[in-house]
């Protein structure tokens, strides 16, 4: 939005800082993780992004992204 470099945004993905090309969608980010999207869930800024919205949801400056899946537990 107000970032000087309009071609990149800084986001936090699972707690790690990443710079992504402006206009990167959740779907593109998930694909860049190099694993099957099956069994994954994504939250952006503490809101669930349902799978059907991954393509249309573009990441913005400062967004906090969580990409989660099953782990042993409980």
């Amino acid at each position, binding site marked *: 939005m107000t970032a000087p470099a309009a071609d990149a945004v800084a986001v936090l993905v*699972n*707690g790690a800082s990443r710079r992504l090309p402006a206009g990167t969608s959740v779907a593109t980010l998930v694909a860049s*993780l190099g*694993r099957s999207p099956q*069994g*994954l*869930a*994504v*939250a952006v800024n*503490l809101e*669930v992004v*349902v*799978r059907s919205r991954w393509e249309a949801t573009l990441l913005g400056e400062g967004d906090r992204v*969580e*990409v*989660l*899946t*099953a*782990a*042993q*537990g*409980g």
Partner: protein
Amino acid sequence: MLEERGQPGRGPAEDALVIAGERFGSRLILGTGGAASLEALERALRASGAELATVALRRVEASGGGAVTEVLRRAGVRLLPNTAGCYTSRDAVLTARLAREAFDTSWIKLEVIGDDRTLLPDPVELLDAAEKLIADGFTVLPYCGDDPVVARRLEQVGCATVMPLGAPIGSGLGIRNPHAISLIVEQVQVPVILDAGVGTASDAALAMELGCSGVLLASAVTRAHDPERMAEAMRKAVEAGRLAHLAGRIPRRFHARASTADLGLADLSPAGG
């Protein structure tokens, strides 16, 4: 959903556990936490006979890539996501919604913990989260304390089960307050599943003898010296406890009561004695 109360004389094969209208042949639910390896977990799952097993939701880097779901699929075990690690209703509700998205199930084992020392459930946050999730269409299986009043409130807001602890998570202390568990069984109509505290097979059998509809355990199996063998022990203990409950135990007596009739007893006293 009301669970069908077991009837004496019915075989175990017909004695299904019914949760929210779905039937399970096994009354043992396994948690997947604590296993040394996925291979050990798979062997334990198979030996346990469990048809339902819990998984947690974690960041992809820390989760082993979600491989645990593949283990469950191979073993033919249905996945029950949990909200382990949540301390507030807000966190638990968001985690449940993420789990629904990841695993395509609206069933959730709801855990909201009060502190990291005891891992005891926070009843205020738990009840709040349960209400919100039920309003959002979830089937909620709440991990709760052994307080009959809280259990009743959880049933009233529409939980599919109540899952009181026997003792703190991972403590292996067994059922510290069997009377409280009996009161919960007496007071709620939904299935009561003893969750947490089981250390060995007799604890699981006791839960079933007290009238619980099922037992959920993880550490007792996954951290046992031989998880596969302990899983088999737990399967048998749950079955034995269930059968004993259905059969109806004898009342406790202070003094002995001979099982052999005195009628026809030989007179073996010395002559003239």
